[in-house]
C-alpha cells in the first residue's frame, strides 16, 4: 500500500555485515547516534511524549473528560492553559492524554506490521522462485491502493475502535516492511557466507535466524522509527475525519476535528494539537534518519577511504601482495625509499634531478608547476595526493603520465582541468596554459578554457555520455557551446566529427543513445566530443583502459592520427606500460603522488632512471621474471 513515509533510504543491504561483526558494529552505530545533534533532540522529544503518555494522570491537571461548563470555550487561562472545549473539558489535559492514544496506536500498528511483514519478506526473499514472483506482484498491486483507503475499508467492515485502528494501520504498513525485508534477504542470500553456512550444514531456519535476521535489524529500526511517525499522522487523519476512536477518547486528531468546527471564532485551538503531531512525527523521522546515517556511516567512511586512499595495485603486474600499500598511510617520501634501496641503474639519480627539475621550454602549451593536491580528511587533516608535481607538454607532443592506480596521476589531470572532486583541492601550484595561470583565477574562468583549449577523455566510455540524451544531442550541444552555428550546421559538423573518430554511418548513429554503442564506439564518441571545441591540449585519462586490446589499439591509432592532423598536444594518463611505449614521446612516472622521473620514452624503457621505474618495468608481464614482486 502506498503510505506516506519520508524518503528515508534504507541502509544499503550491501553495507550490512555477517552476524559475527554485528555486535561491534551495532555498538559503533549507537556511538555515532550519540554524536548526532538532531538525533539527540529527537530522542528528547520522544522521551517527553513517552513520559506524557505513561504518566498522563499525574501530569494532566484534570481528567480528560472532566467538564467545567463555566470554562466552556474559554481561551487560554491560568486554570486552563490551552483553554477548554464546549463542555469545558481542559484541552491541555486532552493533549497529554492524546499522546497516550497516539503512542499506543503507533507502537501497536508498527509492531503488527513488522510481525506480518518481516516473516513475509524473509520467506519471499529466501525461497525465491514462484513464491517471490507472486508475492512481489501482490506487493506491486498494493501500491495502487492509497494507504488511507485501506484504512477506510477496514473501518467500514469492522467499525471503529482502538484495536481496529491498530489493525488498519498495521495492515497499511506491513507491505512496506515485507518489501524491505525481501530486498535485504535477497541481497544477503546471494552473499558467500550464506552459501558457506549451507555447506557447513546449517538448516534454512538456522540461517534465517542467525545470519539473515541480524542484518535486517538496522534497516528495520530505521523503517520502524519512520513508520511510528507515519502511524501518528494516519491516526490523526482518521480521528480528524471521525473514523478513529470514539469522540470521548482524547486524541490529537479528534482535538483538531473539534478545533476545525470552531475555527472561524476560535482559530487558536488548531495550533497546540497540530504542533504536538508535527513535533512527534518530526522526532521519529529524525530518529530514523539518524539511525540510517549511523548505520551507513560505516559505508561512508569506507567510501571516503576508497576515494582518498585507494589500495594501490600495480595493474601492469599480477598485483603481487607486496606491492599493495595505502596512500593514506604513507609516511616516507620516495627519495628516502630511493636512498634506502640502492638504485638499480647508475643513471638514476641524475635523471631524477635533471629531468623533473628541468624548466619547461618556451614551446610548452600546458605547464604544471609545483602542483600539490590534497584531500581533506574527516578528522580535519589533509592527505597529500599529488606532491609538488612539475610537468609540461609541448605543442604536438604526446606526454605519458605513468603510474599505478591511486598514484595521483588522475588528480594531476583533474587539477589541470579544474575538475577536482568534492573534498579534494589544489593546495598550491600553477596551471599555466600558454603562460596564463588558470589556478589563480576563479573556477568559472578555469572552466571557460575547457573544450576550446583543454579537452579531456575519461576512462569509462559509457558513463561519459548522458544516458538519456542522444549522442547527436550531446555533440551538437558541445559544438554550439564553442561555435555560433545553427542546429543543422552543428548536426552536419557532428557527423563529420564522428566520421573523423571512426564511427561509421554517422548520421544514423547521431540519433542513437549511448547504450546502443559498444565501449569502443562510445569512447570514440567521447573523443569526438573532446575534439568538438578543437582544443590545443587533449588529456586522455585512462582513455583506453576499459577497452579490449583490439579496440584499444584502434583508439590509440586514432589519437596518433589526430596529433598528426591537428597538431594537438596530448597527455596520455595510463597505468599501462604498453600504451605508454606505443604512443608517447616523453613519459613522466608518478609514484605515491610524486613525479619521480620524466624522460623520453626510449630512455625510460632502456635506462630507467629511478628505482621505482625499474621495478615497474620489471613487473610487466613481458619482463622475463614473472615471479618478481614489486617491493616498494
Amino acid at each position, binding site marked *: 500500500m*502506498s503510505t*506516506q513515509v*519520508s*524518503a528515508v533510504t534504507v541502509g544499503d543491504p550491501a553495507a550490512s555485515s555477517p552476524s559475527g561483526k554485528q555486535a561491534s558494529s551495532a555498538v559503533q552505530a549507537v556511538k555515532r547516534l550519540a554524536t548526532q545533534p538532531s538525533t539527540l533532540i529527537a530522542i528528547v522529544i520522544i522521551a517527553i511524549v513517552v513520559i506524557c503518555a505513561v504518566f498522563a494522570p499525574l501530569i494532566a491537571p484534570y481528567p480528560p473528560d472532566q467538564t467545567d461548563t463555566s470554562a466552556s470555550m474559554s481561551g487560554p487561562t491560568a486554570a486552563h492553559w490551552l483553554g477548554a472545549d464546549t463542555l469545558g473539558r481542559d484541552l491541555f489535559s486532552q493533549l497529554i492524554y492524546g499522546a497516550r492514544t497516539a503512542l499506543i496506536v503507533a507502537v501497536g500498528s508498527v509492531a503488527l506490521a513488522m510481525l506480518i511483514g518481516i516473516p513475509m519478506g524473509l520467506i519471499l526473499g529466501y525461497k525465491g522462485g514462484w513464491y517471490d514472483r507472486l508475492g512481489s506482484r501482490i506487493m506491486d*498491486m498494493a*501500491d*495502487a*491502493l*492509497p*494507504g*488511507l*483507503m485501506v484504512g*477506510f*475499508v477496514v*473501518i*467500514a*467492515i*469492522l467499525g471503529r475502535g482502538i484495536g481496529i485502528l491498530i489493525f488498519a494501520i498495521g495492515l497499511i504498513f506491513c507491505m512496506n516492511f515485507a518489501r524491505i525485508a525481501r530486498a535485504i534477504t535477497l541481497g544477503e542470500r546471494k552473499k558467500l557466507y550464506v552459501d558457506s553456512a549451507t555447506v557447513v550444514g546449517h538448516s534454512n531456519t538456522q540461517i534465517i535466524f542467525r545470519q539473515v535476521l541480524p542484518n535486517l535489524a538496522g534497516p528495520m529500526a530505521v523503517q520502524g522509527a519512520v513508520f511510528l511517525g507515519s502511524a501518528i499522522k494516519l491516526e*490523526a*487523519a482518521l480521528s*480528524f*475525519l*471521525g*473514523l478513529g476512536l470514539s469522540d470521548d477518547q482524547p486524541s490529537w486528531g479528534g482535538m*483538531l476535528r473539534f478545533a*476545525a468546527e470552531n*475555527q472561524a471564532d476560535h*482559530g487558536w485551538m*488548531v495550533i497546540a494539537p*497540530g504542533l504536538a*503531531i*508535527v*513535533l512527534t*512525527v*518530526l522526532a521519529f*523521522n529524525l530518529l530514523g*534518519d539518524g539511525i540510517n546515517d549511523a548505520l551507513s556511516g560505516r559505508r561512508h567512511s569506507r567510501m571516503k577511504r576508497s576515494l582518498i586512499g585507494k589500495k594501490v595495485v600495480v595493474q601492469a603486474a599480477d598485483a603481487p601482495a607486496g606491492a599493495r600499500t595505502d596512500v593514506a598511510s604513507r609516511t616516507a617520501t620516495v627519495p628516502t625509499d630511493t636512498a634506502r634501496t640502492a638504485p638499480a641503474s647508475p643513471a638514476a639519480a641524475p635523471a631524477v634531478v635533471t629531468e623533473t627539475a628541468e624548466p619547461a621550454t618556451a614551446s610548452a602549451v600546458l605547464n604544471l608547476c609545483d602542483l600539490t593536491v590534497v584531500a581533506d580528511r574527516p578528522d580535519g587533516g589533509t592527505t597529500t595526493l599529488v606532491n609538488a608535481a612539475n610537468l609540461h607538454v609541448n605543442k604536438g607532443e604526446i606526454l605519458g603520465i605513468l603510474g599505478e592506480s591511486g598514484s595521483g596521476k588522475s588528480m594531476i589531470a583533474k587539477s589541470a582541468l579544474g575538475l577536482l572532486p*568534492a573534498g579534494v583541492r589544489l593546495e598550491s601550484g600553477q596551471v599555466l596554459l600558454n603562460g596564463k595561470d588558470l589556478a589563480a583565477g576563479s573556477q568559472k574562468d578555469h*572552466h571557460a578554457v*575547457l*573544450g576550446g583549449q583543454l*579537452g579531456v577523455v*575519461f576512462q569509462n566510455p559509457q*558513463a*561519459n*555520455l*548522458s*544516458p*538519456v*540524451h542522444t549522442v547527436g544531442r*550531446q555533440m551538437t*550541444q*558541445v559544438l554550439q*557551446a564553442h561555435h555560433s552555428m545553427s542546429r543543422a550546421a552543428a548536426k552536419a559538423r557532428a557527423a563529420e566529427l564522428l566520421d573523423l573518430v571512426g564511427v561509421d554511418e554517422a548520421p544514423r548513429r547521431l540519433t542513437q*543513445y549511448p*547504450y546502443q554503442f559498444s565501449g569502443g564506439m562510445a569512447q570514440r564518441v*567521447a573523443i569526438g566530443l*573532446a575534439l*568538438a*571545441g578543437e582544443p590545443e591540449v587533449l588529456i586522455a585519462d585512462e582513455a583506453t583502459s576499459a577497452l579490449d586490446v583490439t579496440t584499444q589499439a584502434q583508439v590509440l591509432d586514432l589519437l596518433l592520427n589526430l596529433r598528426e592532423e591537428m597538431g594537438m598536444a596530448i597527455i596520455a594518463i595510463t597505468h599501462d606500460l604498453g600504451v605508454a611505449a606505443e604512443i608517447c614521446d616523453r613519459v613522466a612516472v608518478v609514484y605515491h603522488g610524486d613525479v619521480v622521473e620524466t624522460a623520453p620514452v626510449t630512455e625510460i624503457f632502456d635506462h630507467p632512471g629511478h628505482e621505482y621505474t625499474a621495478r615497474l618495468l620489471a613487473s610487466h608481464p613481458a619482463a622475463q621474471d614473472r615471479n618478481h614482486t614489486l617491493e616498494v
Partner: protein
Amino acid sequence: MGKLVAYRLAFTLPQLLIVSLLVFSLTFLVPGSPAAAILGDAATPEAIAQVEAQLGLDQPFFTQLGTYFSGLLHGDLGTSMRLGIPVTDLLADRVGATLSLVAGGMVVSLILGIAAGVYTGTRPGTIQDRVITGGTVVGLAIPEFWMGLILTSVFAIQLGWIPILAWTPITDDPLMWLRGLILPSLALGITGGAMIARQTRAAMVKAMASEYVDTLTAAGVPRRTIILRYGIKNALVPVLASAGVTFAILIGVSFVIEAVFSVPGVGGLMLTSVIGQDFPVVQGVVLVTAIIVVAVNLLLDVCYGLINPQARPQ
C-alpha cells in the same frame, strides 16, 4: 510509442482484474452479514433476509461473482443501500472535484519539489541546502489536513483573501474553480513537494557528480546548460519512477483535505459510506480510485519510457 503503451497495458489489465476481485470479496469479509451490519442490532431476521435478497447476497458465490463482473462491464457498480442512487451516478458527480484537487496537489508538489530538489542538489552542503533540506524534513512531518487548517486560518479567515467554502466546479466558472483550488492544492502539495524534493535532491547530487557531467564540463558546455538540460533530465528518471506512488498517496490524502475545505469530492462520499456501512458505495469508491491510480501509473510509465530510452521495449 504505441508499442510502449500496448506493452504497459498488458501489465495493467491483470492488475485491474485482481483489484476488482479484491473489491468484490470485501462484502464477504464483513463479520456476520453486510445486511445485518446495515440494519443494525434491532433488525429482525426477516428484514435482514429481505435486504440480502435485494442485494443478491442470498445467491451462490459464483452467481454473485458473475453478476458483479457483468455489472462492471456494463458500467454498473450497484446501488447505494442508503440513498438508493446508482453508485456510478454518485461517483460521476464527485470524481471531477477529486481529480481537480489531486491534480492541483500534484502540480504544486512537482513544482515545489523539483525546484527545491534541483536548487539544493546542485549545491549540496551549503547553508542554503541545509536550510531547505531541513525544511523538507519538517514538511514531511506536517499532517496535510493541519496545513489546510492553518492555511484557512491565515488566508481565508485572517487575511480574507480567499472566501472559505470557495469550491466552484470548473464547468461553472474556471477562474473561481482555480481560486477555490489554491489553498487545498497548497495543503496537499507541501508534503508531496517535500517528498519529491528529497528524491530530486538525491538524484540531482548523483547526476551532478557523474562522469558525463564532467565530460560535458570538460568539453566546454556551461554549467547552467548542464544543470538545466542534462542534470534535471537525468535526475527526473528516478523521480518519475516513484511519482506513481506519490500520486496514490495524494489521492488518499485528498480525501482528508476535502473535509477541511468542504470540497464535494469522492472523499466525502466515502466518509459517509464508511460510517453508514454502505458497502456498494465503498466498493465503488475503492475500485474507481484503483482505476485512476492504475491509469495515472500507465501514463507515468509511458512518460518514463519517453525520458529513459532504456525503458522502452526493444
